[in-house]
């Protein structure tokens, strides 16, 4: 019962926020344009949150996603400029996009490698790479962005009436949801997060799977990086500063446990949308961004507090 409440709570809050905003601002909020706008804005965070969900379920954390996004974007844009000259177009953009995504994958792979082979806590490793990736992004063009004026498709492109970034977000959500539920990778992710030693004793190659989890997160960060680059038509070395905290917040609001073994993609989707709609609503209601920060902070704490309460109730019910 309480478990059901816990699962429905973020979803209920999301619906509630949408209802309230619809009532308050029917003209500006309840429009297809506004909804697509919100989805488009949440796509970058949402895509990265999918990877973060898997990492958090495995009892890990990745603090480097923001820096990784900046670095992947910078590397992708740099390749575009190297191939296509000062104003790259066509094939140069495609190759650059591909390289940017692979860069993300490589960064994630590096995180996984350091965590498993040096046996270091994920918090420490990604705290380190957070700084290192950011530093490289700055060094690449002496702190200046790479401008790619024609790199617009990932942001402005529309397929079947839906912005391409939203479509990519949807595909990644669906794939990750299926992967977590119906693949050995997903199953092992939960097992490693729940009890790493027990998973190892049950024959799970823990190191190999952890590396995969971090690498795949790097991959989705790379994709998010190229969408961000397209949105700004330039790669910014300052992209994604403190992004990791927003992402972790969305995942936690969605019901994942930082101690591992628990979390779902649907939960994370709801957590991401909850934050996005809240931001959107505050903007429409002329509430300052500073106040938004206060509200989001409170929601994180309430969500986790309710979760704890529900869990301790459930635990008390089956003592002995």
């Amino acid at each position: 019962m309480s478990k059901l409440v816990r699962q429905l709570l973020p979803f209920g809050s999301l619906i509630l926020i949408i209802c309230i905003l619809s009532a308050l601002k029917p003209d500006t909020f309840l429009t297809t344009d506004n909804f697509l706008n919100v989805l488009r804005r949440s796509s970058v965070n949402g895509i990265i949150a999918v990877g973060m969900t898997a990492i958090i379920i495995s009892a890990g954390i990745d603090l480097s996603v923001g820096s990784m996004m900046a670095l992947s974007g910078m590397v992708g844009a740099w390749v575009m400029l190297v191939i296509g000259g000062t104003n790259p177009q066509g094939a140069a953009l495609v190759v650059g996009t591909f390289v940017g995504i692979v860069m993300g994958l490589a960064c994630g792979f590096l995180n996984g490698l350091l965590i498993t082979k040096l046996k270091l806590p994920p918090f420490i490793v990604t705290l380190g790479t957070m700084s290192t990736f950011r530093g490289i992004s700055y060094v690449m063009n002496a702190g200046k962005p790479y401008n790619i004026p024609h790199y617009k498709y990932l942001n402005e492109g529309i397929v079947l009436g839906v912005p391409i970034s939203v479509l990519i977000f949807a595909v990644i959500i669906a794939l990750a949801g299926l992967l977590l539920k119906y693949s050995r990778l997903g199953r092992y992710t939960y097992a490693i997060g729940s009890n790493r030693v027990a998973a190892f004793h049950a024959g799970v190659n823990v190191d190999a799977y952890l590396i995969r989890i971090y690498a795949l997160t790097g991959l989705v960060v790379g994709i998010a990086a190229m969408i961000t680059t397209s949105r700004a038509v330039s790669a910014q070395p300052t992209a994604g500063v403190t992004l990791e905290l927003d992402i972790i917040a969305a995942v936690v609001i969605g019901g994942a446990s930082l101690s591992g073994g628990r979390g779902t993609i649907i939960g994370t989707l709801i957590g991401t949308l909850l934050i996005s709609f809240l931001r959107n609503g505050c903007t429409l209601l002329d509430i300052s961004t500073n106040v938004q920060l206060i509200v989001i902070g409170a929601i994180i704490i309430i969500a986790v507090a309710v979760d704890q309460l529900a869990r301790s109730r459930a635990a008390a019910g089956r003592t002995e």
Partner: protein
Amino acid sequence: MIETTQRSRLSGPEIALRMNGISKKFGPVQALSDVSFTVRRGTVHALVGENGAGKSTLMKILAGVYQPDSGTIEINAKQKVLSKPAEALAAGISMIYQELDLAEHLTVAENVFLGMELPGRLPFIMDQKKMTARTAKLAQRFNFKINPTAIVEKLPMGDCQIVEILKALMRNASIIVMDEPTSSLSETEAEMLFELVKALRQKELSIIYISHRLEEIVGLADDVSVLRDGRMVHSGPMATLDIPKIVHYMVGRELKDFFPARNINIGETLVKVRNLSSKNGVEDISFDIRKGEIVGMAGLIGAGRTQVARALFGIDRKTSGTIELDGRRLEINSPTDAIANHIAFLTEDRKRTGLCLELPCSWNITLPNLVEIGMKNIIKPRQESKIVTNIAKRISIKWLGPQAPVDSLSGGNQQKILIARWLLAQSKFMIFDEPTRGIDVGAKKEVYSILNELAGEGKAILFISSELPELFGIADRILVMRRGRLAGNVNPKKTTQEEVMHLAAVEASLRKESLGQ
């Protein structure tokens, strides 16, 4: 049938604790119904019962952790309401839990005075000298041998128990509850603990002693109370009881055929281990196990039995030695390799190294078997549920369904989840490390039956246990470990428990007779 002796109606100064008509419900589950429990001053009172019988609930009520739905508690003839742990402590009740509750980096004296440190001359500075002196004095009064300035982390398990007891005594405890105090102690340490308990009794303290090991209760307890399904089924002096009677009260039936008879049909050699040594203290172990054979492994705690299993299963690195299965030499460097080569290892520590507690039962059962059951690429939950439910039926696991989290099950059923895992794996060589530890009598018997059944299917079984009676009950042969080496290889039909103990505990050079096959 509920029996209550005259004793529970006794009154007067000799009664230290009287719990009367205690009932407690958790949701729909009636954990305790109308339980009365009386403890005399200066006695050791054993509290026994199967897992889930209500022992911990009763003790948590006494400790002020839970509130009873009805019933009263009298301590030293004064009625008390214990609404929180601090009140129970103030009333003279101290709990010593199975997992000791010590600050490992502090000294013995600091632990004894934890939370009630003696103030020194300066504010925020405690008087170390005085605390050390008073700890030493207290220890001396009870004849406990311990250094008050030693760091707890460096003490052996037995000494940690002393610290817990001193802690209780320093708080003027008159009733000490000990929950499975010997479960992590070696044989000698356990003996030492019994002496401690007797010393406490002599000083007019009352000890409520919870244990699954009935043998130790016989020598130690003055009174015994038996809980079954939340009811007090018997309470009376130990003198009128023996182990079969206690077991009878615990399970409500005689366990004449405690160790089921088996059709022993031993085939050719299946497992051949030669000169196995590991970094974890295993030295030069060689043995064979044949098809259908249950080979027991005895030894004291720290003799290296689990380490042998860990080396065989690829958890610890081998430094030398070979393992052959079915005449084929195996290359095992990880549990993954071991499982691929049809070896199973049921861990002794199911919570730490066995189960993913918050995950569903079905996931725990299929964890090492996903490839085996054809779910290498895609997991089919419905088919998985069906497979798991079948195997659960076979060994009668009691659960709310395959999707229930493992931590919602009782200890015995959790153990069965791990057994189900390895049954599903279709292993040929199965290592069971203390499979009956911490589970109740009924579940133990079921585990023995499963072992017999597996042997009947022609599997080779290595059965590690600290309980000699069960080794003698079902093993065809017993390997005795001592300090990482094999000290003996005996036939239980031609030897005695004393002799095995002798092999396990006494240096070979001091042994007169030469045992073994």
